[in-house]
């Protein structure tokens, strides 16, 4: 089964049909997908700005992550779940252009960057508590995160423009 077959199967499933034909649920799902960016994208941008030393420099990175993590996870869960539901509703036409596959690729890059950051700094108490000076690699991780998540949002907004069937 290739990616097109998978998306076709999702589209033809009971869930895909129900979502695509729903007058209210589909717009609601799309609305939540967009507005949950305030928690997911908005908070990750704030953390990235902190890693770059731009926002809230007096707050240790570890404290910021501890205080915002539940809300970021909640935001990303809402964005991710509604994104999957939109994939069910829209099916293989998402694959008609390079935009959506590229969006998935950039999400993968952003996720790998986040995993690397956690692996590298997740237990580094000197860095997390601010006892150690900000390190270049953490700033680079922040810049990659900022660039990749911004690209994901831009690509998401471009999808309808590159496929007249929406």
């Amino acid at each position, binding site marked *: 089964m290739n990616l097109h077959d998978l998306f076709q199967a999702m589209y033809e499933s009971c869930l895909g049909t129900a979502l695509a034909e729903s007058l209210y649920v589909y*717009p609601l799902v799309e609305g939540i997908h967009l507005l949950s960016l305030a928690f997911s994208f*908005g908070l990750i941008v*704030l953390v990235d700005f902190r890693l770059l030393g731009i926002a809230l420099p007096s*707050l240790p990175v570890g404290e910021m992550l501890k*205080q915002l993590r539940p*809300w970021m996870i909640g935001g990303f869960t809402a964005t991710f779940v509604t994104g999957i539901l939109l994939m069910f509703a829209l099916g293989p036409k998402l694959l008609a252009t390079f935009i959506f596959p590229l969006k998935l690729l950039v999400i993968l890059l952003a996720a790998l960057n986040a995993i690397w950051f956690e692996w590298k700094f997740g237990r580094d108490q000197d860095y997390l508590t601010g006892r150690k000076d900000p390190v270049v690699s953490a700033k680079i991780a922040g810049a990659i995160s900022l660039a990749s998540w911004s690209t994901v*949002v831009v690509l998401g907004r471009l999808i309808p423009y590159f496929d007249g069937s929406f």
Partner: protein
Amino acid sequence: MAVSDRMTTIDLFKAVQGSDIAIAFGNAPLVFGIAAQLFHISGIVLILTPTLLVALRIAGTGLVDYSAAQLERKSRVYVATGLLFVVFSGLFMLIPSATLYQPNPAFQLKLILLPVALAFHYGFLARIAKEEFSQKWLAKIIALFMALLWFAVGMAGRAIGFLAA
């Protein structure tokens, strides 16, 4: 002025849509439309995220190393920038198709919710975020209501496209 001479809302929207600036916006290359949408989304995030952080802090969670008043002060520049983004990008999208928007119930709802959200934001947020605001339970309710109000503005905005289709 006689009743028949009064300009109705639809007349106003027709006049706006027929203006030179509306025609210029309507003839602008697609890339400007895409840019307007991206500015609109960026503006929404710039308003919602700082407002949520202040609302969460008033509720006793989120960035607890800062006071709600400190966060509210820091949020002002982001919310103001976000408002500039949404207003100008919104006008760019609205003006060339004003008569399509005017009868849309989601647009009409947005036009009601937006000033209410702005009134709550600029009328109450700074006051309830202050340390000396004694009625904490009331502050939490207003903060929650205000955050929901902004989300409702966003949902109404998103619904415009679906109801117009």
